[in-house]
């Protein structure tokens, strides 16, 4: 077993496996599942204009996010990653199953913290609120991104590179976590078996995360493994029926409004906050923080 796990692998094979799991999953699971969700909505007579426009806005925000991601990637991210890897990294790890599994686990753990930060600091919520602002819950919501959603992961994945993991493997692992997360955005799947619900993040756990019910706020940040939430005190099971959305509803499917509403609300809050220090604190304090009058 150890021999198998530690056997050195070829990059061509590893990149192919990630290509199948990450890129092609859109074709063989995500799109078919989304179609199934639409049929279900139709059967339940819930296929409203609002839902369709909401889904279209989701895809458009993904397009904008993707452009920002590509520009950032070309300009800086990969260069920074490789520079850190060459200059500030522990001994480079060989490409084998042990390294891949460890890298995915660390990427998943980094995702937990990055996600938690997105909820708990003002600037993070200003971009991540876009993802939560939909009042529906289906696979298209997974693609509803904010303008700065590509930035925060950099801060949390660089330490993985510093631990000796290849930058490309780190990026592939991050996408893998994101793809797993995408599959959780569905109402079709109820609760799974207890061992699975205990260890893994599931649609049920993630519905809770999207809930605007008070007890569901800032819970279940996990990507793949829900055990991070259990260990770090943010787990909440799905009990009460989930009401999706945010506490201050957006009430618009205009893609531009959807994409920028978090930032515009943040700027309005900064404008009405007195004092330079307080204005800065709005960026790093929790979203519900208000300066003392």
């Amino acid at each position, binding site marked *: 077993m150890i021999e198998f796990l*530690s056997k050195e692998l070829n990059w061509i094979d590893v990149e192919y496996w990630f290509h199948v799991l990450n890129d092609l999953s859109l074709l063989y699971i995500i799109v078919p599942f989304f179609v199934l969700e639409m049929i279900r909505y139709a059967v339940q007579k819930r296929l409203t204009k609002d839902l369709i426009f909401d889904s279209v806005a989701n895809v458009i925000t993904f397009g904008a996010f993707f452009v920002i991601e590509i520009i950032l990637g070309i300009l800086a991210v990969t260069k920074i990653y490789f520079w850190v890897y060459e200059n500030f990294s522990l001994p480079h790890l060989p490409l084998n199953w042990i390294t891949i599994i460890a890298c995915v686990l660390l990427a998943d753990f980094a995702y937990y913290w990055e996600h938690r930060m997105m909820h708990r600091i003002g600037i993070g919520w200003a971009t991540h609120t876009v993802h939560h602002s939909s009042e529906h819950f289906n696979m298209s919501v997974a693609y509803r991104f904010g303008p700065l959603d590509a930035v925060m992961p950099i801060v949390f994945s660089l330490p993985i590179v510093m631990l*000796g*993991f290849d930058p490309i493997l780190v990026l592939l692992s991050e996408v893998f976590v994101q793809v797993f997360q995408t599959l959780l955005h569905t109402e079709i799947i109820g609760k799974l078996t207890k061992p699975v619900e205990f260890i893994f993040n599931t649609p049920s756990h993630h519905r809770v995360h999207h809930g605007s019910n008070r007890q569901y706020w800032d819970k279940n940040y996990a990507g793949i493994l829900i055990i991070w939430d259990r260990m770090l005190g943010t787990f909440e099971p799905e009990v009460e029926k989930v009401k999706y959305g945010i506490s201050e509803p957006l009430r618009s499917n205009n893609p531009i409004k959807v994409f920028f509403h978090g930032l515009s609300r943040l700027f309005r809050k900064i404008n009405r906050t007195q004092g330079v220090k307080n204005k800065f604190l709005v960026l790093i304090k929790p979203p519900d923080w208000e300066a003392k009058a």
Partner: protein
Amino acid sequence: MKSSTLLFRSLAIIIFIAGGAQLAGYLTYDTYAANEIETNHLDLEETDTTYEEGESKQGEAQDNSSDEPLLTTIELQGKWGVTYDSEDFTGTMVYDLKKEGKAINAYLVEYQDENGYGEAANGEKVLVIKKFDGKKGKGVYSVAYEGETYEVDCKITIIDEKTFQLSYDYYGYGDTETWKKL
């Protein structure tokens, strides 16, 4: 949950996963623990003052080849040639391998065409061997591709006393070069 608890639990998780991967990487690299370059296989001056550059150390090779007959321990320092047959260059590049600090560095010193006529090269450093136990090693190799130079992790495997193979795999673009002692 207290911030300090969050911090310590998070650090424990990171250390457990990354430490496990590093430990596995360390243990599964069979020669990693055996040496850090300064072993007697490499330190020419300390082990064999009569040894001259370019000669193989027969005795040492025999002493260390008992368990893996295909591999012998050899001295890397000295001049080595690699023959290429590509659109960019056809002929032999001559490298001078020198021990510098804890690493062995290879410098490109000469180009030789197919007829053996040589031309001095600029002496640029193309290879840093960071770990080597006389049979296998690891390092960083400079690979030029479409005008860009990439620093690529590479592995060294000794074939016989006068030959080693240098292999690398850069995200699927890899090669194995045969280096011959001159």
